[in-house]
């Protein structure tokens, strides 16, 4: 099955059809997506600012990121699940959308940066790179609806 065929299948699946035909389904899922984004953005930024020595200066390196890790992961999962549901509304439309493609690439790079930074590298650089990539993903996300 090619990617395009998978998109066709998802769009015609019962989930895709249910979201497309429901009056408020898409809007409600979008709201969950935004709420999760707010919590995710907050935890990401605070961890990054701590890594850069701007806030919580008395806490050892990595302590704030560890304490916020569960909330960050939970909000990321909420964004992914709600994002997949939004995608199911019209997979073929998104498949062809340049902003959507850029957004997925930026998310992949951001997640990879987050995973790699746990094993090696400069925490400050990884934090700034993460914030930049996620910022790009958010901007690309808004652009999906404009293109």
């Amino acid at each position: 099955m090619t990617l395009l065929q998978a998109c066709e299948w998802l769009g015609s699946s019962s989930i895709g059809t249910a979201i497309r035909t429901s009056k408020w389904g898409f809007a409600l899922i979008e709201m969950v997506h935004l709420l999760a984004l707010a919590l995710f953005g907050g935890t990401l930024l605070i961890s990054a600012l701590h890594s850069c020595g701007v806030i919580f200066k008395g806490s050892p390196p990595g302590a704030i990121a560890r304490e916020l890790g569960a909330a960050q992961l939970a909000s990321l999962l909420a964004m992914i699940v709600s994002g997949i549901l939004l995608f199911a509304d019209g997979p073929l439309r998104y498949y062809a959308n340049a902003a959507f493609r850029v957004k997925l690439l930026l998310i992949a790079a951001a997640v990879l940066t987050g995973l790699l930074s746990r094993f090696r590298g400069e925490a400050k650089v990884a934090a700034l790179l993460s914030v930049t990539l996620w910022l790009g993903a958010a901007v690309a996300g808004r652009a999906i609806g404009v293109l």
Partner: protein
Amino acid sequence: MTLVQLACQWLADTAIGTRIRESDNLFSVIETVHVLGIVLIAGTIAIVDLRILGILLKRQSVGAVLGSLVKIAWFGFAVMASSGLLLFWSEADKLYLNPAFRLKMILLLLAGANRWAFHRAHDSGIAAWSAPATVPRRARLAAIVSLSLWTGIIVLGRAIAYW
């Protein structure tokens, strides 16, 4: 037409309002900045509230969390309010009549009042809240109210476009 409605109509008809409304991308660009501002203020306020409730950052004192995040929250507020003003400027006549927008403004005022009352009542005692059990019940209630209001603000903000 009421006086407020006339003022909104006038605002939307000004050169700046017309420019934002008729530009290809300006509205979307400002809207993106607006969303990022909301992420900054709502994200940091949510973390402060979750700390007050003893859910996040339990090893940091409430005072330390507030001290670290309050500047970010105010910065987010400045971004959100200035971009929001520009968005309102371009659609003031329509937004005045939009029920989601009206309710959102009321919730924003309530969120501000709740925060103000919280600081007025608790600022002198926050330093003593080290263990979760020492956070007064009223402060926990204020945190729950704040989380609910900000959830409502984000939901209604998205709902404006559907009206």
